[in-house]
């Protein structure tokens, strides 16, 4: 247990000390949130709630998709290339304990990101929600980030680090924009709305919108996201095991 705790701590340090973390997980989402909330008016109505709360959910989801899928995937790809994964296999720490420590570290850092984003929103835009809706939406954003960690593991199987970086950024930006996290899907042409509604990013954000607006989860979206997570994980395991047997 002690090595696991130490490993989780080390992985947290590695994650938050990365210059990409501050920029892509914190500063960029806060900047976009501020722009969207300011331009549309933080108190203006949207989807049964205010822009201040609606866009907060979108941009926190945007940050967490980038952290869980993008940064996690790119890091894993580099660790394979640099030989760190090989080196870890020589130590008594099992690979599964190492991956579990990485996931634990991510979930704790995701919690920190949510606290920072929610705190910023409450202070700067005076966003007001019942206490339990803050709690429920925050909890959902943490739980719902797990399928994106599975996507990160899948992206991390890409051998070429340049390709992994390019694909990860494309996937995370594409999912965020097409899933309606930047602009609501209703502003898109009809076919893009249909496409966007099928994406895991939309399912993720949509449940948090539903919680802040109605206080209830969008259960269909929860199932869709779970399904995606299972597919990502199974594909990653398949790719990995096929490689090991080659």
């Amino acid at each position, binding site marked *: 247990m002690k090595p696991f705790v*130490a490993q989780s701590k080390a992985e947290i*340090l590695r994650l938050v*000390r990365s210059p990409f973390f501050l920029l892509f997980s914190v500063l960029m989402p806060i900047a976009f949130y501020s722009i969207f909330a300011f331009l549309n008016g933080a108190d203006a109505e949207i989807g049964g709630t205010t822009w201040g709360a609606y866009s907060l959910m979108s941009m926190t989801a945007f940050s967490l998709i980038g952290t869980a899928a993008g940064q996690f995937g790119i890091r894993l790809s580099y660790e394979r290339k640099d030989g760190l994964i090989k080196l870890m296999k*020589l130590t008594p720490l099992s690979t599964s304990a190492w991956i579990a420590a990485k996931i634990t570290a991510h979930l704790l850092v995701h919690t920190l990101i949510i606290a920072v984003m929610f705190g910023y929103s409450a202070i700067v835009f005076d966003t007001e929600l019942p206490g339990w809706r803050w709690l429920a939406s925050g909890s959902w954003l943490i739980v719902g980030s797990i399928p994106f960690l599975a996507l990160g593991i899948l992206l991390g199987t890409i051998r070429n680090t340049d390709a992994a970086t390019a694909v990860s950024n494309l996937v995370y930006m594409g999912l965020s924009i097409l899933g309606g996290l930047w602009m609501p899907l209703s502003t898109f042409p009809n076919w893009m709305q249909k496409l966007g509604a099928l994406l895991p990013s939309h399912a993720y954000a949509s449940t948090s919108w539903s919680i802040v607006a109605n206080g209830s989860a969008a259960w269909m979206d929860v199932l869709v996201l779970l399904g995606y997570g299972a597919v990502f994980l199974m594909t990653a395991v398949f790719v990995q095991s096929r490689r090991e047997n080659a």
Partner: protein
Amino acid sequence: MGPIVFDHVVKKYGNREALKGLSVTFPSGQVTALLGPNGAGKTTAVSILLGLSKATKGTVNVGEYQAGDRILRQRMGAMLQESPVADGLQVREMLNLFRGYYREPLPLDHLLVISGLEQKANRRVSSLSGGEKRRLSFALAMAGNPDIIVLDEPTTGMDVESRMRFWEVIRVYAIQGKTILFTTHYLEEADTAADHIAVIADGRLVAEGTPQSLKAAMPLRKITFRISGELISEQQLLALPGVQEVRRADDLMELFSVDTDRLLPLLLQSGIQMTDIQIHAAKLEEVFHQLTRGSAESGGSIR
């Protein structure tokens, strides 16, 4: 812990055989060099020993345990050819993290001293130079105070001073009775640092023994002389009985042969005008060259 034993190990990558039935024993408590040209199978052998890949056929054992057994992870430390670091951490943090994996780790200060990184303890590992990362890899390999130390081309990338310090430290561990196995391209290192040398070429063992016994078992000698008169072609010299190789640098000729007693009179009778004739025992490098060249030419078998 017992010796490291490779028993008829075959490793295939697709159709290519990297190891073709390697059988070799690395004695416990000794420093052994695994010596061989590029592509001989050194790294493949090391990665099977470390449990990173599996032998297609044959077995590798460390004492009573099979290579890859989890128990061995507590007892073995290794430097791979790459020097990976956990970016984001300081030298001190990464060393302490690794120390935490083992039941009886070496003290942090000791690891900093053997790697010469005392002044860099608070530096981020990603900011270290290539040579410093190499030394950090050594400290990481030693973090668990292993009984068996496996080093794949350990000194590549180190400067001369670091290299000297490194072998001094290895000497100390050898005196403590640790089993040390290293691969190297540097024949000088194998000669001076190892108690025992195993030479492999083309996936097989071609020779083994102490540096002295290797030289004795392959009693290669060389006759050197300067040509004072008419120049003579290398082909003519190679035609003399027992000459294995000829090297020349301007008027200085080097003839390699296992039977210089027979060669010398023939050479004197040949009419070549020679000065400054000397006979030397060949250096280990030259013995090694003959061993691995012979193996490659005859398609792998030893002549």
